[in-house]
């Protein structure tokens, strides 16, 4: 029944691509995106030079603590930003069409039809005084110019697709449970058969069992409909279970990006390591938790150099002075950390291939040497259950690390069109 509904709903994209679309171009390429908020106290750059790419049918997870720019990055794609926010630089290319250059009016063609969003609190995102079926039908009428009857018929199909009984379309949001509301939100996001669905913390407020159901649903939809997903969450385990690639953000910048297996099995950026250690992990039997001391920086006044340096257990002098370049490793992982200088086992990421999923190995050097594995054993002297502060002995001697010493770094590949990472 469901598979049948899926084939009817997709038929692999019923609506034509936008006129200017280049079908051979990658689905979505974001390059050097910068978004600023104007506040009374000055400017706040919530997103500061973020680049990534999303391919057809791929699921990308964006991870990080609150306030690191995940949601702003996603909302910048279709400019669903508050009035005091502005994209100041960079491009967002959907099939080669730069959405940043579009006027608000022209962008309407893309909002919801090409890129739709499943918001976090379904109770707040749904209109409490309208039936959910009507709400699902609305974008079909408004955006695709279909009749009301056609909209409602499709709404019923969509409810079927997300595993809700069709007649629940007549319910009001308050009559549904949390999981059902989230399913209705997903149905609404799928209404116009979009190319990309962004999930902004889609499971955060749900119980574990319902979370597992929703994640399973998203995975099935992606497989059946060939959707591309962007999943924003602070919960790394959600990304590990649903995504192909992960982008870890810190203070508006990319800390690490790469395949889920490569990044989570061998996190290279100290922030990624810390973030992973902060989760209890029943499956691996690790009952201790890492503390990431301190808080994310105030972006009105970000720290110089690497923005993670005030909280980093491996901090070196160079971290306080220079912004680390993004370095790509042979396994496709991109890291911005001075522990991984260019020319070591990675190469400076190039604008052109910055997010290419399979960067050709440029260097034969073995991957992963510098960073010690995060200590997984329960610390003897620790508070029961929780790991102690990072062991200072584990901090590598700065002199021992083949480090950038402020000398011009020789890029392995000459950067012709390289967007040099400005310090």
């Amino acid at each position, binding site marked *: 029944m469901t598979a049948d509904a899926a084939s009817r709903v997709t038929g692999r994209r019923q609506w034509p691509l936008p006129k200017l679309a280049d079908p051979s171009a990658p689905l979505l390429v974001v390059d050097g995106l910068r978004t600023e908020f104007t506040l009374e106290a000055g400017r706040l750059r919530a997103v500061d030079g973020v680049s990534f790419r999303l391919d057809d049918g791929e699921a990308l997870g964006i991870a990080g*603590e609150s306030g690191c720019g995940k949601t702003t990055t996603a909302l910048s794609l279709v400019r669903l930003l508050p009035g005091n926010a502005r994209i100041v630089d960079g491009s967002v290319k959907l099939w080669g069409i730069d959405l940043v250059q579009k006027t608000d009016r022209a962008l309407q063609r893309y909002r919801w039809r090409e890129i739709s969003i499943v918001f976090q609190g379904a109770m707040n995102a749904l209109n409490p005084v309208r039936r959910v079926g009507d709400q699902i039908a609305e974008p079909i009428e408004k955006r695709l110019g279909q009749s009301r009857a056609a909209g409602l018929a499709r709404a019923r199909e969509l409810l079927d697709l997300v595993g809700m009984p069709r007649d629940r379309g007549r319910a009001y949001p308050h009559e549904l449970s949390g999981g059902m509301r989230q399913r209705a939100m997903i149905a609404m996001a799928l209404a116009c058969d979009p190319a990309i669905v962004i999930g902004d913390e889609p499971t955060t407020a749900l*119980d574990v*069992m*319902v979370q*597992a159901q929703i994640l399973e649903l998203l995975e099935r939809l992606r497989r059946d409909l060939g959707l591309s997903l962007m999943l924003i969450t602070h919960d790394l385990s959600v990304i590990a279970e649903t995504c192909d690639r992960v982008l870890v953000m810190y203070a508006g910048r990319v800390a690490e990006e790469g395949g889920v297996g490569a990044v989570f099995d061998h996190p290279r950026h100290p922030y990624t390591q810390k973030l992973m250690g902060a989760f209890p*992990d029943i499956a691996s039997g690790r009952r201790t938790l890492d503390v990431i001391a301190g808080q994310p920086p105030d972006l009105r006044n970000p720290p110089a150099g690497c923005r993670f340096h005030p909280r980093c257990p491996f901090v070196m002098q160079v971290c306080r002075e220079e912004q680390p370049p993004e370095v790509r490793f042979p396994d496709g992982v991109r890291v911005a950390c001075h522990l991984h200088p260019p020319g070591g086992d990675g190469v400076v990421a190039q604008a052109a291939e910055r997010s290419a999923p399979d960067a050709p190995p440029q260097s034969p050097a073995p991957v992963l040497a510098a960073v010690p594995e995060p200590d997984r054993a329960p610390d003897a002297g620790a508070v029961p259950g929780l790991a102690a502060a990072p062991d200072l002995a584990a901090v590598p001697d700065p002199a021992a690390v083949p480090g950038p010493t402020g000398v011009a770094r020789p890029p392995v590949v000459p950067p012709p069109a390289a967007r040099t990472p400005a310090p």
Partner: protein
Amino acid sequence: MSELLRLEGVEVHFPVRESIADVLLRRERGFVRAVDGIDLAIDRGEVLGLVGESGSGKTTTGRVIVKLTRQTAGRIAFDGRDVTRLWGQRSLREFRRRVQIVFQDPYETLNPRQTIHDFVAEPLEVNGLARGREREERVMAALESAGLRPATEYAFRYPHELSGGQRQRVVIAGALVMDPELVVADEPVSMLDVSIRTELLQLMLELRRQRNLTYLFITHDLSVAWVIADRIAVMYLGRIMEIGPADRVIRSPRHPYTAALISVAPTPRPHPPGTHVKRTILAGETPDAAHVPSGCRFHPRCPLAFDRCRTEEPPLFDVGGGQSASCWLAERGTAAELAAVLVPDAPGGAVRAPDGPSASGAAPPLGQTPVPGGVPAPDGQPR
């Protein structure tokens, strides 16, 4: 260790009244059995994790313990004294000094127009416990022990000037200022970011060590309970399904519900390519507590249910090692093997067996997940 709190057969049944006439005539159309007969004992200095999904009755249990909700049956004893019938502000005053609660959402607990200092000082004032300089000192000491240092920097701020983690620390300070013995913490970290969550859990354990506090830690997240609790109790539809030492419950669950919860506990480690980790995703949601299923209340969602489960409710069977489970399989002693079927990669050790597709394919179809292509039950309401 001495026993600090004991609940015996505690029930909370809320009457269902469907119309105004029902309300006026005090006529009942049935009951929501939020808490349906639980026995629980907590030792002094212990952390008991109470785990369950929404609607399992875990919050109501917490509210009964701090006497915010009246039980409809059962007995409660605190520190050897029967407090079942202790009601009314005056008689509760001493009890409230010794038993405090921390709620989930610090945004709602704090009054936006009250300074941090006034919030923390209020319980002392209301209870007439300390005044003048002594009160000031106790407020500042409570703020500092909740990790807001120096206290003078925070005391005269308003809640909106603080971050979420700092607000929850203020709420904890408000509970600590009374110098309680038992703290009921109702999802204290669920609203917080990972890094802040860890700091708060650490703070709570540190406070327990310093003051020999006892916690009832209510959470929907089994893995958080596993980190903080000495013992874990798993609730479902108003009843305790399984209880025991945290490590035993996690490593060898004896109830299929616990096993299913463990199997869906998220892990930040992706499965190696080519392997498939079997998860028991239960269809539907916790049924409405106004329509509790007959027999074992978990049977409509249980992948292992058999005839007896549909008619007879199992008691809590002692399975040894301080662990008990309310499941007919636990009586027969077969639960261990069956749980192993449900959780193929139960964490027997830190090593995770590379459980190939063949291995999981060979498992009996007991725990098969009904989801892909199947019909997820609408709200799981058994009719």
